Every structure is written in structure tokens, then in C-alpha cells.
């Protein structure tokens, strides 16, 4: 098992990458357009046009930004609070990403590559958060906090 410090660094990097992807989607859709698919096809336009692009009037990408921001924050918080928050958030993120992927495949009939990228980042975040939570929850405050540079 990697040290908790390394897991927290990985979680922070994934959180930042997720914020970047979700911000791009949110800005592209907020401007009245849609994210540009990297390898052609019109999947991103179709998904962005669908009614599922919003949740209670809020763009799903904005919810994604919030989710990744919580993941980033939980990576920076030592101890069980950070472990618990990271694991719960990543679990919610993966569950919701699976639901969105189901919608893309079977309801909207279109795949948005940016959404897939976000789903992959969220799955990786869950792997890292689960590793941190399962290995270190209940072991007290981290004795080798992120800032100290010591391994556990």
C-alpha cells in the first residue's frame, strides 16, 4: 500500500484534473455551445443538448466542479475527516458518473468524450480515496502530514 502522503498527492492531482475537465465542459456549455469532441462525432453536442445536461436547473458540469473541489479539499485535510470526505465524495461521483454513462449509452444514444474522461478521473479518484480510507481510517491523525514530506 502506498503511503498516505502519496495517496493524498494522487487524490489532489486527480481533483485538479477533474476541475479542469469539468470547468471546460461548463464554460463550453455556458457559452451556449458544447464541448468539442476530440476525435470527431457529434456526441458532445448531443449530450449537451439533452435534458440531462442539467440537474435541478444546475449544469451537471458545475456539479462536477464542486465534486472535484471537495475531492481536492479532502486530499489536503489530514486524518479521518479527509479520508471520510474523500471516500464518500468519490463514491458519489462514481455512482453518478455510472448513471450518466448509462444515460449516454441507452437514453441519449451519444457519448461525450469529455464526460467519459471525467468518469475515468472519478473512478481513479475512488480507487485512491478507497485505498486511503481502507488502509488508514481509524489510525488517528496522520503522523506524516502532506506538508512534512515524510512517508508513513
Amino acid at each position, binding site marked *: 500500500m502506498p503511503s498516505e502522503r502519496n495517496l493524498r498527492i494522487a487524490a489532489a492531482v486527480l481533483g485538479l484534473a477533474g476541475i479542469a475537465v469539468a470547468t471546460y465542459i461548463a464554460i463550453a456549455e455556458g457559452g451556449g455551445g458544447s464541448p468539442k469532441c476530440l476525435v470527431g462525432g457529434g456526441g458532445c453536442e448531443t449530450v449537451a*443538448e439533452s435534458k440531462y445536461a442539467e*440537474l435541478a436547473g444546475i449544469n451537471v458540469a458545475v456539479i462536477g466542479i464542486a465534486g472535484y473541489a471537495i475531492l481536492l479539499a479532502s486530499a489536503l485535510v489530514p486524518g*479521518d475527516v479527509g479520508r471520510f470526505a474523500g*471516500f464518500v465524495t468519490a463514491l*458519489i461521483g462514481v455512482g453518478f458518473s455510472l448513471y450518466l454513462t448509462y444515460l449516454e449509452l441507452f437514453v*441519449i444514444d451519444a457519448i461525450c468524450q469529455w464526460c467519459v474522461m471525467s468518469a475515468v478521473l472519478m473512478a481513479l479518484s475512488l480507487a485512491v480515496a478507497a485505498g486511503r480510507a481502507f488502509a488508514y481510517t*481509524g489510525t488517528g491523525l496522520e503522523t506524516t502530514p502532506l506538508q512534512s514530506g515524510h512517508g508513513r
Partner: protein
Amino acid sequence: MEGSEEARKRRVQYLSLATFAAVAVIVALIVISQSGGDDDSEPPSTLRGAAEVSALLDGIPQDAQVLGDQSTAISVVEFGDLQCPVCAAFAAQVLPQLITDQVRPGNVTYEYRPWDIIGPDSEPASKAALAAGEQDRFFNFIQLFYANQGEENSGYVTDDFLQRVSTEAGVPDIERWNADRAATKWDPVLAKDNSDAESLGFTGTPSILVTGPGGQRALEGFGLPEIESAIQQIR
């Protein structure tokens, strides 16, 4: 040892609570998602897009399922299902540019062949469109249908909905349209569209075939650059 057991118990409690909380939030998000937004299972009470469809098609000759000047040798053929949301996106985002740039100037014709693959509501929709084509309103009908499309197989394709689309599409004789859409002559037409689409290797809608003096291209995608590139190749 006791401390380690305590830590294990605490870990199990934390993680069980985390999992329970996450599942509850995911369920709540899905419920909100399913209940929010436009309810696509109901067609809108007033049809959308009538003015845009008129502006797009006015002045372009249409004969049954072919739009444009038929003296040109190049044809862009779409195999589509009126219930297909991606076809609706194609109709809204790609087709207007193709019609404006290529069909209206007479460079190509655009042909639409119904390929009913989504479900039982597809066939009455296709027959209604083909019947509108008998009065040269086929493209007005399909563009308006796509602009007001509901959720797949949700039952929104009612006689009332089809008649509203037909009326808004400018079909002059609704009584005749009603008789035409009930005709059995469309069954072999739809069967041929189905077999042709399959023999071309298409697997979903919309699928695009471009034909011309230089042969034919069955496209993998349906973006405008790909279609225009195929037009250049078979010119």
C-alpha cells in the same frame, strides 16, 4: 492488540456509514435528474420550430423523399429513425448547413430513407412522413417532427401528435394524408430501407450514404466535414 481491534471496528463503522451516505446521495441525484427538465414523454402543446423549418426549406424543390434539384448527380442519403435523438441532433445541427451550402445551390440532393430500428412508435411516424411526402411536405414533416421529438417509445407518437406535425408542416389535404399513411404500400418501402441499410453495413441511425458519378461512400460518422469530403471524392 486491543487498540488495533478498536481501529478496525472504527474503520468498518466509518466506511459503512460512508457507503450508506453515498448511496443515499446517488439515489437522490438520480431521482432529481429523472424528474427535472423538460418532460420529453409529453409532446409540447405548441409545436416548436415551424418558422425555422419553413425558412430552411422554402423555395427548395422536394419530391417525395428527395430534396433539391434532381438534375444533379450527387446525392446525400440519410437512413434515419424519427424517434432517434441523435438523428434529431443531426437534423438541428448538421442538416441546416448542408441544405444551405449544398442542397439549395443545387450541388447535391438530400434523400431521407426511414429506417425504423428504435421501436414500435417508429413505424407510424415513418408512414406519416411518407404520406406527407405524397403532398411534397416530407421534409417539412420530418424536420418538424425532430424539432418536437419526445422520449423513445414513450407513446407520444399519437394520431393527434402526427396530425399536428402534418398540419404545421403545411400538408394541404389532411384527409388524404390520413388515408395515405394507413396504406400498406409503405411496408415494402420500409422493408427495403431496412435491408439496404443493413447491406451497406450500417449499424445505427443516422447513417449517411453519399452517391455520385465517382461511386458511393457509406460514412462512419455524420459530421458536415465528413459529408463534404465524401461529396468531393465522388464528384
